[in-house]
């Protein structure tokens, strides 16, 4: 059978079952069963599929995923994160759009403690949104920053998705974790500038209010008590990688224990919130890892039938400029991101993309950061944007999906601008790992 039929059958059945509403993991399994029957020798191919599912997660490079998620959940459920946001709140003076700026600064801070975008958005939404609405903030300036900055959690280490991407696309995970820091900070900075300008032009969307008169020390003290110590967690995670003491997995384990120690030191660690954290972590990491069990065979069947190799040789022989190929790949990711989750996006595209990227000779770490940026954007693109749902869940009941989406769109455009910037100046991603590796 011609390779394009194989590709069409596999991708077609996968998308059909996904859009029918079958859980993504079963859509993968269904496509694999059909693919194994047709292209891997029938029943013995299906038996191989089962073995693949069993060995898929017995993979050392996936170990940081549950640990990074656990870190975020502990910080969220023990209330340590909420108190840190509160301290940031005291620090920022009386400016237009104050709470939105608190969301951006606090969300970026929390991103360096949490490997889970969901925990990040849920925490910001539940701590800041009620206050914003009480103060008369319009949805357009309240929800947008929370969703936008929620996605930054997957760019700044710890990041479960960066680990997954590195492992599937065979990009050095330490480099990928370090390379995403600077682009994430640029992104956060532009969000901050946007909110400031927007509220300055139209103060009515975020009415300023008097904050209780506090001395300089009263404002700075909570920051020193509730935020600064948290930075030691970031130091443990990133520092242990940079100093060459730990692999990403070990840094994740050390970071988790650091989170527990800090939560205990604040006397916030309770049996019930610890259990809640573990439960949420099992839920999200099992969901992620089980998709890997289902999807690993998918890329293998594509390779076994020769479809991956043929597709990449067609692309490479097409005489398209490498930049167009790159833009095409990112555009496809962006479109997939409109109706698909990040894990499925990685699992479908990377086996097809990476051979081409390597052939063109692009830097894989840079490409990995671009991929992460596009996925960060797709967390907030309708109709399927995970963070849109999380934010809507955390917002007051009368908030409509339309309000959520319109509030997020400007931030999506800013993020696209940053992607363009990174394509134009690759050095922005590569400088941090290069500095550290030399």
């Amino acid at each position, binding site marked *: 059978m011609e390779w394009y039929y194989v590709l069409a059958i596999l991708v077609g059945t996968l998308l059909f079952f996904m859009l029918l509403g079958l859980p*993504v993991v079963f859509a993968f399994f269904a496509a694999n069963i059909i693919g194994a029957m047709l292209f891997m020798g029938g029943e013995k191919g299906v038996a191989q599929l089962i073995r693949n599912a069993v060995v898929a997660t017995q993979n050392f490079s996936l170990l940081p995923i549950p640990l990074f998620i*656990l870190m975020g959940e502990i910080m969220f459920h023990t209330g340590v994160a909420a108190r840190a946001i509160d301290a940031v709140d005291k620090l920022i003076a009386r400016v237009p759009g104050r709470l939105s700026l608190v969301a951006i600064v606090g969300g970026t801070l929390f991103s360096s403690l949490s490997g889970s975008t969901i925990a990040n958005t849920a925490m910001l939404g539940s701590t800041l949104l009620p206050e914003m609405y009480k103060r008369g903030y319009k949805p357009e300036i309240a929800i947008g920053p929370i969703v936008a900055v929620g996605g930054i959690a997957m760019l700044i280490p710890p990041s479960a998705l960066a680990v997954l991407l590195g492992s599937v696309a065979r990009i050095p995970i330490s480099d990928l974790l370090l390379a995403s820091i600077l682009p994430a900070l640029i992104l956060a900075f532009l969000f901050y500038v946007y909110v400031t300008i927007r509220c300055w032009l139209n103060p009515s969307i975020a009415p300023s209010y008097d904050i209780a008169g506090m001395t300089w020390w009263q404002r700075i003290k909570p920051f020193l008590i509730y935020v600064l110590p948290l930075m030691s967690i970031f130091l443990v995670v990133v520092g242990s990688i940079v100093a060459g003491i*730990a692999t990403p997995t070990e840094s994740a384990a*050390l970071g988790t*224990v650091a989170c527990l120690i800090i939560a205990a030191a604040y006397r916030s660690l309770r049996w019930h919130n610890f259990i809640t954290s*573990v439960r949420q972590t*099992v839920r999200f990491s*099992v969901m992620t890892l089980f998709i890997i069990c289902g999807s690993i065979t998918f890329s293998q069947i594509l390779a076994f039938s020769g479809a991956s190799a043929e597709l990449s040789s067609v692309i490479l022989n097409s005489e398209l400029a490498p930049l167009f190929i790159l833009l095409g790949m990112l555009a496809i990711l962006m479109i997939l991101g409109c*109706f698909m989750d990040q894990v499925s996006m990685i699992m479908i595209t990377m086996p097809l993309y990476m051979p081409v990227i390597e052939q063109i000779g692009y830097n894989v770490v840079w490409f990995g950061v671009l991929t992460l940026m596009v996925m960060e954007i797709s967390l907030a693109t309708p109709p*399927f944007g995970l963070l849109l749902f999380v934010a809507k869940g955390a917002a007051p009941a009368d908030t409509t999906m339309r309000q959520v989406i319109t509030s997020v769109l400007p931030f999506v455009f800013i993020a696209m601008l940053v992607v363009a910037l990174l394509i134009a100046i690759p050095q922005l991603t590569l400088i941090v790992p290069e500095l550290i590796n030399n």
Partner: protein
Amino acid sequence: MSDNSPIPKRLKWIDSLIDGLAAIAGIILCALTLLLCFDAVGRTIVRFAGDAGWGYTIPWTLDVAEYALYLMTFFGAPWVLREGGHIAIDLLVERLAPVPRRWVSVATDIIGALVCAALFYYSCQVWWTSFDEQVLIHETFVFPEWTLLSVAPATFLMMTIIMLCRAHRPLINSIRNRLKTGL
């Protein structure tokens, strides 16, 4: 643990079993974290103070951590399914009118049940082959491969049951409603 479990009340023990396995998954997660941390700290001590005979490294960390990740995933998967935690793309289905939407969801649940049943069947076959051939795993520990493989059939069987219960509930309700309205 769950109020909207699709599993009927008289099969409550299945619910408890699923909860129990999820609890084991949680315990595995905690143990895994401690193990990796203990190893990282112990090794760092060895590196800086190894000459003094301090520190300790665990040679089997990597192997056991990999098994733990697998076991956590397969023990937790049925619970995540019951809780509706396996991500699905329902944006097209959501746009349908209530009645066709219900039937599409019954159809996907039946497809899901079929997929799980097939996975259950083939995982039993794989398990039996490995058991019959006495295949061993030669890692830090040498042990029969079927021990690891035996988790998969249990997971897929439980998922088949959950999917069937999910399909069954709206089906029964719909028939009841039709009977009530005299149809």
